[in-house]
């Protein structure tokens, strides 16, 4: 039976930074080193390079998916962009303006343009505040707007995320997880930001409500032109929601490119392993496909491996991989990959890894 719940034609893909237009956000060599302190005197005994030289662009209205496992630095990267934590190196430019130099009122002004949606809508909303205050707080903080005007704005925002004026005086506890995440999105939209950083926005939600929130985020991009950094570990959702995907491993981006290319024709061995590890809801495919099972655990970011950080788990590792860190090189599909397979030895020169590995990834849809 085919039902009629609204399938729409795909929106025209927004310009990627490769088109030459100035990107909305330009991140270069972003770095965050956390000191590890120990003992009575809290002496620094070691450093964790949580984010180590990350560079990417986000175009206006673009959705960039950022994927990786726990400890890859993807959430830290998201927080660094908004300076919720301070970077220790690199640059973040929003519309050509360097954010790292900003302080006080200037920083607050820029934060209107960048908002965040957190993973857990059960802890990111004040349980004692009614929806009107949660969503309306940005207006009060930034414009000192009177309550009546604020409430009118809040109702408009609630309608944009599929809630209504009758929810204005309710408290977070009266809402389901999916509805709470809508409230968090409404709050993020309040100041008409140019970029929303969504850190695992659907991971805490039940499966039947995940797609509600993913669709909402896609709608907002199409309607309001807001760009999105979509941080998540579920590749099928990221693939669906994103224009481009960046894959992180131990603090660095190993591959970035068009979402279909990275998902279906990955060029980096880690991308391939990560994508092939996720089981798909099709028993026939699960029985027949070849899956790469990675040996061992991700190494500790406290003591990352030399050279390419992925080499101890990589099935294709060569001598050079343990000695020299690979530089990003262009892929034929227009993305970038940091892997010696593309530049040394029997080189792939930007072709998909499948040409060498024979691993195919089931096409969605």
């Amino acid at each position, binding site marked *: *039976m*085919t*039902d009629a*719940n*609204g*399938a*729409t*034609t*795909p*929106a025209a893909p927004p310009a990627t930074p490769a088109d030459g237009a100035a990107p909305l956000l330009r991140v270069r060599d972003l770095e965050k080193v956390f000191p590890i302190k120990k003992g009575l005197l809290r002496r620094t005994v070691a450093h964790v390079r949580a984010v180590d030289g990350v560079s990417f662009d986000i175009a206006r209205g673009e959705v960039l998916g950022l994927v990786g*496992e*726990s400890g890859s630095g993807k959430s830290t990267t998201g927080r660094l962009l908004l300076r919720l934590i301070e970077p220790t190196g690199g640059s973040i430019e929003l519309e050509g303006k360097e954010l790292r130099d900003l302080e006080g009122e200037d920083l607050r002004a820029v934060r209107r343009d960048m908002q965040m949606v957190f993973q857990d809508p059960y802890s990111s909303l004040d349980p004692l505040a009614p929806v009107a205050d949660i969503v309306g707080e940005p207006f009060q903080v930034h414009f000192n707007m009177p309550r009546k005007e604020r409430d009118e704005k809040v109702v408009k925002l609630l309608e944009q995320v599929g809630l209504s004026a009758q929810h204005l005086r309710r408290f977070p506890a009266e809402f*389901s997880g*999916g*509805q709470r995440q809508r409230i968090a999105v409404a709050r993020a939209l309040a100041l008409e930001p140019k970029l929303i950083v969504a850190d695992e926005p659907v991971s805490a939600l*039940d*499966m*039947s*409500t*995940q*797609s*509600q929130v*993913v*669709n909402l985020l*896609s709608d907002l991009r199409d309607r309001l032109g807001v760009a999105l950094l979509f941080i998540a*570990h579920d*590749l*099928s*959702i990221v*693939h*669906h929601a994103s224009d481009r995907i960046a894959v992180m491993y131990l603090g660095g981006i190993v591959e970035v490119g068009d*979402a*279909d290319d990275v998902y279906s024709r990955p060029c980096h061995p880690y991308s391939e*392993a*990560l994508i092939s*590890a*996720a*089981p*798909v*809801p*099709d*028993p*026939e*495919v*699960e*029985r027949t496909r070849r*899956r790469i*099972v*990675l040996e061992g*655990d*991700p190494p500790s970011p406290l003591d990352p491996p030399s050279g390419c950080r992925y080499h101890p788990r990589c099935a294709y590792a060569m001598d050079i991989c343990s000695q020299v860190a690979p530089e990003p090189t262009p892929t034929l599909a227009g993305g970038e990959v940091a892997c010696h397979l593309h530049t040394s030895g029997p080189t792939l020169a930007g072709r998909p890894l499948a040409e060498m590995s024979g691993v195919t990834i089931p096409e*969605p*849809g």
Partner: protein
Amino acid sequence: MSTPSTPGAAGAPTGPLLEVTDLSVSFTAHKQTAKVVDQVSFAVQPGKTLGIVGESGSGKTVSSLALVGLLPRTATITGSARFAGQELVGMTTRQQREIRGNDISVIFQEPMTSLDPVFTVGNQLTEAYRNHQGGSKKDAMARAEEMLRLVGIPEPRKRLAEYPHAFSGGMRQRVMIALALINSPRLLIADEPTTALDVTIQSQILELLQELQQEMGMAILFVTHDLGVVASVCDEVSVMYAGQVVEQASIDEFFAHPRHPYSEGLLRSMPHSVPKGERLRMIPGTVPIPSRFPTSCRFAGRCPYAQEACSAAPIPLEQLDDGRVVRCIRHRELVMEARP
């Protein structure tokens, strides 16, 4: 997944290893009773894997924990659960202890909270073994080492002397599996065993469980919310919604032709079911809370096919000729597809 033709030892070789019939669980608090599991029935065949899938609040975890007496005292359990001819419901605590960790073992989602942080891994493994098998400490230690090797932990002898905190998340789950399997259970209850793990570690653990099942021939009751995991490790699947089983089928039949509107909605809401660029399908609304479960069809409020009759009376769980089970009065007239 394919499984060996050597189901766990004696018992009736033809019948199911575990047969749950009309299992209900209620909790009473502040003089109010909430029936969170309502007349759930399913069967697990020897050596096979049954997946129980559902969202939070569906009752999937409560039904599986009820089988082994791991619910708090406030829970009232009725119905029947026959395991290899033995009735599990109404067993004394002592009888439950004898069977738990021995014939039936459990692994949980969060391996750190299920291992005791103040005892070494070797200590916990040998205790589990000697509690049920007796024997010397030395024999138990040898068995513990064998188990750690079996679950793929490098240098097992050395690691026996270490505490749980010294293991990574994936390695802890391996220790949990070793602990659960040390007495060669005939049934393993795996409650979201990979949900807290990264996807590359998840695939290691799923592969390990399948290998061990081949080797040891145990049946697995796999509780999960992830349909991808179901497709990859289960033989059959039982779908729970709001405390009830709404459908049970072999995974091939289920993923190709779901028979219940909720199953169809779930399958269609997976990102895999629509091409990129199209909107994801969704199930409108949310799961009702136990105190507000309707007495008629519990999914009717969210169901695209609901009619008046759906909200008139309780819907029975119907056994179909092809062995499938479905709780929907319109299943004969509706033709459903996993993809929109």
